[in-house]
């Protein structure tokens, strides 16, 4: 599901960049411009590799952390059918995380290193998962809005210049529309229910709308790293373009549900054919990215605990495999 415009500053100092000749860089850019895919062992600029490692691993972490807000409702899903669906969706998120770690590893970074960066808090994940899921309607809102926003972001990534990442995205996008539809379906049923159920759906939209718009990252004017990612064809559309697209398709869906988008500035502009919407609270976005969202500590704490609690299982499996291998050799 959930990539984000997480193109923050690249803090690591350029290491091997100085050894890259202008001819190499030019030849590389020519391949990109010709829409050739770059594959794992191909020559690539160190900065291209680093950008991809950062983006792919953060994308993977988002999938993994993204299981938590939904997992919160597994034991309290209203019916067995909803529970089975939610369980399948969460399992998909784990799978998406694994496809992405697998793509990240092709760039020469180990899975342990990527996971380690998540657990120490060095690597980021999508800000959206630091919001709590307070009611069942939130599960609907996550599927509809958060997965909806993720689809907008991810479809262009299927054409990303890096082959292994693009292929992982194709697989992910195929599975994503189930996620969005099941979310919409949850809200549709609530909206057709009692006034209290409809109010619950409205409350979920009120709380998830703005954080979903933030998923596309900073405004283009403030997104310093976009230009290079566009030139490398890692990114195909700007943050604002994708955000606009999302608003344009989602507002009519909210109208269908009979829900009100919580934005007094929202108007349809006949001339351009787009919805105009209000200013995002960027201070909130920055705070959540910095670790001060409602659930940041809880999310990371749970992930760390799960990792530590699983250590004996990983160790036991390793010991068993070694024993079996020794037996077979004897």
């Amino acid at each position, binding site marked *: 599901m959930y990539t984000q415009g997480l193109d923050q500053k690249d803090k690591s100092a350029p290491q091997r960049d100085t050894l890259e000749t202008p001819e190499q860089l030019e030849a590389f850019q020519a391949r990109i411009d010709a829409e050739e895919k770059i*594959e794992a*062992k*191909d*020559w690539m600029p160190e900065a291209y590799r680093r950008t991809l490692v950062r983006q792919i691993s953060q994308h993977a972490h988002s999938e993994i952390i993204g299981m938590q807000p939904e997992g919160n409702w597994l034991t309290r899903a209203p019916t067995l059918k909803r529970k089975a669906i939610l369980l*399948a969706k969460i*399992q*998909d998120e784990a*799978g998406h995380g*694994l*496809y992405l770690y*697998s*793509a990240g*590893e092709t760039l020469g970074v*180990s*899975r*342990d290193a990527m996971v380690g960066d998540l657990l120490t808090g060095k690597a980021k994940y999508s800000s959206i998962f630091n919001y709590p899921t307070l009611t069942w309607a939130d599960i609907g809102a996550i599927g509809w809005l958060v997965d909806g926003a993720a689809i907008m972001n991810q479809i262009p990534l299927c054409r990303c210049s890096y082959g292994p990442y693009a*292929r*992982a995205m194709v*697989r992910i996008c195929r*599975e994503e529309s189930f996620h969005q539809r099941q979310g919409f379906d949850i809200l549709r049923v609530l909206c057709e229910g009692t006034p209290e159920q409809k109010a619950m759906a409205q409350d979920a939209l009120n709380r998830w709308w703005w954080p979903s718009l933030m998923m596309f990252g900073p405004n283009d004017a403030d997104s310093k790293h976009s230009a290079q990612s566009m030139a490398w064809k890692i990114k195909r559309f700007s943050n604002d373009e994708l955000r606009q697209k999302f608003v344009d398709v989602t507002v009519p869906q909210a109208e269908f549900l009979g829900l009100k988008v919580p934005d007094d500035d929202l108007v349809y502009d006949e001339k351009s054919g787009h919805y105009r919407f209000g200013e995002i609270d960027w201070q909130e976005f920055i705070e959540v990215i910095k670790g001060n969202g409602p659930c940041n500590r809880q999310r990371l704490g749970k992930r760390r605990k799960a990792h530590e609690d699983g250590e004996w299982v*990983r*160790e036991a*499996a*390793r010991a*068993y*495999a070694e024993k*079996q*291998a020794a037996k077979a050799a004897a």
Partner: protein
Amino acid sequence: MSNKEWPLYEVFIRSKSGLSHRHAGSIHAADDQMALDHARDTYTRRSEGVSIWVVRSSQIVASDPAETAAFFEPAEDKIYRHPTFYEIPEGVENL
């Protein structure tokens, strides 16, 4: 106790009989059986396969991308290997 990663396996899936196995991605597993189980859970949740191969990534021998030109060049000037190289005289059929 060692704290190293489980080995990496590459996963190949046959989507239906009649087609060949195709690379799907990779997974980590402690042993071969677990690799098959993880590959199934990771890559065939929607019945994408009828057969899975897993192989330790370290066992794969691959050509070197830096040597691509030199490695594959010898095939390039042998255009006579393609049927379109040959002229077919007018009037000749079923050739």
